[in-house]
């Protein structure tokens, strides 16, 4: 059937800020969907609060609203735009839930907006665990025994009936937030408590455990004609009990017989039919008992998902794009397969390689967090690798994680580790379990032993054992006796040159030379959806040590763009956004664009984004091999390292030494900016103030430096992103403790010690400089939180709302001079702090930064594109940029944090970055913009009620005006004794409440009884540390906004006031930009 003709305008909802469980994959799927819809001549209206996305580029949709994903905001968008239909299936759980809310609120009906892609009924059957299970039983598909509980009593009854261990899962939460595994009654009560609280419908599912069973996922599609295909099967190496998002997974499924697989496929077909997903993609999870093959269905996601992004990258089949077309009424056979061109999309991809995905966690940033992996996802990113064999893909995936020395799987035996603790490390899954598996194998433990503890399928364990044996063989021979055959076996098994070098005791370069002599260079094979049965027209490739190479490089001038690898806190989607923009711009400049990246979630790894895509690890070995291959047909090859964050920067010097042409700012300038000593000298020569600083390579040195510049000091290793292992220390003891902890954080580099500028205002600046020395400043962003809270973790605003003009002028002047001194060609990010009327430079990064996308959306100028053009020789003037950029209105960027997934972790902010993503709010005034940003970040600022205030003595004076405003706005105030007394003394009435350690009912009780609507709590210092920490975490669990800085509190107050006076309005980027004449 041809496509529906009744649809003209489609509303697409994005997934909002990057959080654990919802990352770039929804920018990838959303962008694909928007493109697909527009290619069908439809108008697309997009709503997404996350500015750091390609989908919110003004070119991606006809109307782009960077607005909070709330019913209120989206209703206004609908009222203004009057779409015919809403596509809720490409924005993750967020979009699905919002669609349901809009329907329940009668909004869709009121403006008669049709839902396409999934009906409310289908969404509910799939997402409501009880409805889902009933549905499954009704079609004779087994599910784990369970029942739903709306209260603790009901939960306990079920516990008696089913028995432990038990799985607890809240309804309608994404990525399993609030779920868990209970082995005993205490754990059970705790998890149920939390789960009931976190479920939007106050409902949990208590379920029979099938821990240890094999876990599988099928990515399936269905069209309105009831045609059904399986796009990809995925097997979880970590068995049931570890969330698929935290599991190491492999595609295709490798341990199923055809009978088992077809039975699963038949079930999937019946499930998608029963749930009633008429068109589009779904993800269905199954568990299989390895002892007898018994199969149960676990869940189905009636939408594109993280796994569908993985499946798309793994097979070359663009699920989201096809899903969008199916939603328009096409049937699968009416849609061509991009890659083969001649064949239709109504087929099942078959692959002749193996794909392995490994999650990346961020526990190092949350030391108090529980590292046990359970039913709720904890990882922040993932790397995927492709090889011709499992071993090759597996080892490539692990080196793609960029974990440095801690990433090494081989010969990491630890003499101090006794068998008992090793058994534990195997039995209780954590982010480090795979390393334990390899230690056990090296210790000679039997497969059965390891299988008994981990339940990992013996097939995978055997593969790991083969890897260990190969490593042994290499260790046995020295560098001289290494035969070509053994070297070949090692490379074909996925060993990196660095691995081999370490094993035989030589260096990477000599291994590379050895390889090249032996003719061992990677061949590049194509991902073609059909195992070579048909010709592929898409250069989407992976490297492998095979005979035949299919890269077919051209002789055109080309630019290789190095991506940013797996998402991690401090290096996320913003950098992928920049890499994509580089590609788009350079393609327009007539270059052939080549992308190298290993993150399956991203737009950069969509073969549509670039001319040639290499899905490869971002190590020197892998990247250099690619540039060599691309050079082979002649044609100038240059490389962009500025856009992928630290990952490519770390490679730039070596690549240059190896003869790779780096464009943009020279690696030497990059080093000049990153090397604190060189940089300090530069600023000194320029006469630009900076915090007194020094470097230390030993605890002793550190003490000397601290003594000379005076406490408090900021300490950190060099060459880190996101303030990794960064701390503020107030005394010698703390400094000594830090030195011992931090030096292992990055041995290669010295420790940097800066004078800590207390209560300073922090400013971020992004600028572009070209070869003519012209510098255009994209924006001066004033932070809401004071310096000391990582730039990535503090809200910021353009234009500045409190800065003195002379300071802004100084900042612009310093930025220009530093950019010229560093001979920056392209982007530069600088951070400043203003204290006692002096502007200090905190740091300068001659590369793309986290704030580039946000600035680009606010100003309407695609900074990353402009800078890319600059790198290939176009001047700023030539691109019409002669003066610094301005914005109309006010734009606030606010971060979001993963604390809710890490119970017991303090929510207090510091110089080490902890946020996973961000949202943007725009409005006429700062207050309204800040309010919208808060909304977008899921902080519901109250309009009335009781505000609890508890601040340390330094803050007491400055909290008075804030308290007064709150009172004026009709809030009643509640405070701890000291604060209350101080407020009363200043004529502000506040009731007194116990601290948690003072007796009951204390503030915690009041919070739980929902008698507090807002918490303002600045750290009260060591003694009461645990007290206010408790307050903050209770507030978080209860969803009560808890503000930990006075500047943040002041901003919140002006936001509350703005909502009163101005109310909530929405406006599209296109309108903002038009007003600015762009």
């Amino acid at each position, binding site marked *: 059937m041809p496509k529906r003709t009744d649809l003209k305008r489609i509303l697409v909802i994005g997934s909002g800020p990057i959080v654990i469980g919802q990352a770039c994959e929804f920018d990838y799927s959303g962008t694909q969907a928007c493109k697909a819809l527009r290619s069908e001549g439809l108008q697309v209206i997009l709503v997404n609060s996350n500015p750091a996305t390609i989908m919110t580029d003004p070119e991606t949709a006809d109307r782009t609203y960077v607005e909070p994903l709330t019913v209120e905001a989206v209703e206004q968008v609908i009222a203004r735009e009057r779409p015919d239909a809403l596509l809720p299936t490409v924005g993750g759980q967020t979009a699905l839930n919002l669609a349901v809310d809009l329907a329940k609120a009668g909004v869709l009906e009121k403006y008669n907006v049709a839902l396409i892609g999934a009906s409310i009924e289908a969404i509910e059957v799939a997402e409501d665990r009880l409805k889902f299970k009933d549905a499954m039983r009704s079609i004779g598909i087994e599910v784990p025994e369970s029942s739903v509980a709306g209260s603790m009593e009901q939960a306990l009854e079920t516990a008696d009936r089913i028995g432990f261990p038990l799985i607890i899962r809240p309804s309608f939460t994404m990525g399993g937030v609030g779920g868990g595994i209970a082995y005993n009654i205490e754990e059970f009560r705790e998890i149920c408590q939390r789960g009931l609280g976190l479920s939007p419908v106050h409902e949990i599912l208590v379920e029979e455990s099938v821990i240890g069973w094999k876990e599988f996922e099928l990515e399936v599609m269905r069209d309105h*004609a*009831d*045609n059904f*295909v399986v796009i990809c*099967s995925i097997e979880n190496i970590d068995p049931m009990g570890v969330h698929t998002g935290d599991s190491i997974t492999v595609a*295709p499924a*490798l*341990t*199923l*017989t*055809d*009978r*088992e*697989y*077809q*039975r699963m*496929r*038949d079930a999937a077909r019946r499930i998608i039919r029963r749930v009633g997903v008429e068109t589009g993609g779904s993800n269905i999870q199954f568990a299989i008992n*390895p*002892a*007898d*093959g018994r199969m149960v269905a676990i869940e189905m996601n009636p939408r594109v998902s993280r796994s569908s992004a993985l499946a798309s990258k793994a097979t070359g089949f663009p699920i989201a794009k096809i899903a969008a077309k199916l939603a328009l009424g096409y*049937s*699968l*056979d009416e849609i061509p397969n991009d890659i083969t061109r*001649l*064949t*239709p999309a*109504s*087929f*099942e*991809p*078959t*692959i*002749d*390689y*193996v794909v392995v995905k490994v999650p990346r966690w961020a526990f190092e940033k949350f030391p108090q967090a529980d590292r046990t992996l359970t039913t709720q996802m904890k990882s922040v990113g993932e790397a995927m690798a492709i090889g*011709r*064999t*499992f071993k090759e893909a597996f080892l490539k995936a692990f080196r793609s994680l960029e974990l440095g020395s801690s990433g090494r799987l081989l010969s990491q035996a630890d003499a101090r580790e006794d068998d008992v603790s090793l058994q534990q490390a195997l039995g209780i899954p954590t982010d480090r379990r795979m390393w334990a598996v390899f230690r056990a194998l090296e210790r000679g433990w039997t497969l059965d032993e390891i299988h008994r503890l981990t339940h990992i*399928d*013996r*097939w995978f364990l*055997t593969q790991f054992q*083969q890897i260990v044996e190969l490593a042994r063989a290499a260790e046995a021979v020295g560098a001289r006796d290494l035969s070509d055959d053994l070297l070949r076996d090692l490379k074909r098994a996925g060993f990196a040159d660095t691995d081999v070098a370490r094993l035989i005791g030589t260096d990477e370069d000599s291994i590379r030379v050895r390889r090249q002599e032996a003719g061992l260079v990677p061949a590049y*094979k194509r991902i073609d959806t*059909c*195992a*070579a*049965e*048909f*010709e592929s027209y898409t250069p989407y490739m992976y490297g492998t040590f*095979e*005979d*035949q190479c*299919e890269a077919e490089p051209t002789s055109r001038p080309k630019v290789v763009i190095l991506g940013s690898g797996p998402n991690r806190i401090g290096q996320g989607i913003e950098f992928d956004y920049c890499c994509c923009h580089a590609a788009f711009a350079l393609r327009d400049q007539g270059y052939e664009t080549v992308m190298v990246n290993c993150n399956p979630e991203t737009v950069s790894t969509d073969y549509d984004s670039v001319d040639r895509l290499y899905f490869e690890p971002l190590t020197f070995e892998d990247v250099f091999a690619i540039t060599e291959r691309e050079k082979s047909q002649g044609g100038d090859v240059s490389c962009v390292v500025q856009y992928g964050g630290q990952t490519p920067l770390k490679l730039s010097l070596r690549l240059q030494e190896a003869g790779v042409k780096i464009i943009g700012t020279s690696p030497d300038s990059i080093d000049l900016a990153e090397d604190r000593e060189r940089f300090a000298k530069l600023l000194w020569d320029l006469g630009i103030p900076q915090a007194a600083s020094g470097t230390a390579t030993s605890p002793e040195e550190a003490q000397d430096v601290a003594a000379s510049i005076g406490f408090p000091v900021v300490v950190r290793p060099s060459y880190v992103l996101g303030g990794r292992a960064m701390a503020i220390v107030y005394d010698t003891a703390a400094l000594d403790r830090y030195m011992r902890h931090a030096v292992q954080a990055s041995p290669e580099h010295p420790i940097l010690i800066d004078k800590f500028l207390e209560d300073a205002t922090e400013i971020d600046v992004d600028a572009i400089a070209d070869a003519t020395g012209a510098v255009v400043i994209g924006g001066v962003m004033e932070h809401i939180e004071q310096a000391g809270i990582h730039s990535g973790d503090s809200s910021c605003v353009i234009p500045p709302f409190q800065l003195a003009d002379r300071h802004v002028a100084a900042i612009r002047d310093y930025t220009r001079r530093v950019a010229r001194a560093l001979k920056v060609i392209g982007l530069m990010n600088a951070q400043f702090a203003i204290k006692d009327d002096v502007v200090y430079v905190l740091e300068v990064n001659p590369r793309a930064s986290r704030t580039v996308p946000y600035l680009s959306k606010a100003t309407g100028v695609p900074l990353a594109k402009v800078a890319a053009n600059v790198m290939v020789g176009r001047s700023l003037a030539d691109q019409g940029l002669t003066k610094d950029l301005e914005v109309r209105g006010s734009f606030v960027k606010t971060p979001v944090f993963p604390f809710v997934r890490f119970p017991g972790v303090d929510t207090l902010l510091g110089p080490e970055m902890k946020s996973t993503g961000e949202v943007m709010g725009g409005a006429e005034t700062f207050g309204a913009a800040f309010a919208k940003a808060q909304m977008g970040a899921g902080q519901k600022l109250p309009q009335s009620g009781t505000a609890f205030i508890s601040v340390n003595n330094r803050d007491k004076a400055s909290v008075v005006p804030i308290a007064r405003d709150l009172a004026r706005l009709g809030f009643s105030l509640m405070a701890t004794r000291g604060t209350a007394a101080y407020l009363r003394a200043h004529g502000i009435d506040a009731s007194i409440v116990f601290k948690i350690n003072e007796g009951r009912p204390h503030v915690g009780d009041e919070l739980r009884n929902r008698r507090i609507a807002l918490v303002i709590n600045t750290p009260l210092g060591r003694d009461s540390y645990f007290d206010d920490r408790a307050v903050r975490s209770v507030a978080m669990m209860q969803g009560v906004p808890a503000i930990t800085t006075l500047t943040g509190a002041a901003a919140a107050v002006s936001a509350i006031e703005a909502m009163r006076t101005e109310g909530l309005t929405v406006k599209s980027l296109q309108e903002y930009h038009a007003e600015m004449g762009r």
Partner: protein
Amino acid sequence: MLALENGTVFRGRSAGAAGETGGEVVFNTSMTGYQEVLTDPSYSGQIVTMTCPEIGNYGVTAEDVESRGLQVAGFIIRSESPIASNWRAEGTLHDYLASHGVVAICDIDTRALTRLLRSSGVMRGMIGTGRVDAADLVERARALPQMEGADLVQGVTCQTPFAYKDLASNDFAIAPGRTSRVPLKVAAYDFGMKWNILRRFAAYGCDVTVYPASTPASQLLATKPDGLFFSNGPGDPAVLDYAIANAKTAVASGVPTFGICLGHQVLGLALGASTFKLKFGHRGANHPVKDLVTGKIEITSQNHGFAVDPATLPHDVEVTHKNLYDGTIEGLRHTSRPVFCVQYHPEAAPGPHDADYLFSQFIDAMEKGKTP
């Protein structure tokens, strides 16, 4: 070592029995079901390459065989599993191949080989283990008989008629669309029939008697069957004049007749069409086939190197199914007589169960035949 008639040579490791073997080298793109492939008689005379690189992972089990033994002439894989990891496994693939004397090779660039077969078409090839001279092996590959014009059916058909008793477990199969209301007798020609066809017939409630390929049709008709069946099998259909003659009789008899794969080609020939050889055939479990009557798409299990030529179809035969990859004929039906057949494999094994409904269709036809 693997040597092809065009001179190409691949060096790998032996993955099965020692020795030498020759045959037509073909590739199969199915990601599961290597054991069903190995035991499918339609592959006799062929050396099969699996495009899926990791093979042998779940071992082998007597439950999943499609015939009395291994049928392929040789086997080519990228990476063989050292162990068998599955609760039903009875042994490893390597031992299975070795103990049944099947010569196999692994650790070669099977994708390069597949691309070669795709672009140059299927070729004759030889696998030799141990010390072998490349040039000499290529020569022997060239000396192998061509697939065209060879009757391979005689090598795989049963020697004497037998009634099928369902032995192997069926607990993975889908419930049949429906079982026949009355007991139905099916007389089936065995050109190298896959056992899952028999299992499906049994599941649908039919008693099947299996006859050697060259049994005269009159003998089958004499048993007053409710339906006649022409099975899958290896090689070139055009040379099977006895089978074609029997098919003609079957069509004329008015007894409901159903054919699969080679059976489909034989019926096509009997109905007056002719067949031709495909460049590299259809072998896999992901081919989209469109049912031209309902417009629905089935993902099908395929294994054939020859096909019926649409240009030669007589007026009273209509195309019921079309392959969406290359438009070739996947199903035929006689407009006035109860005769229909498909080129692909509704019995799956390996592959999706999408086309299982064809067995119901056959049941319908037979029941209609019973109540005139």
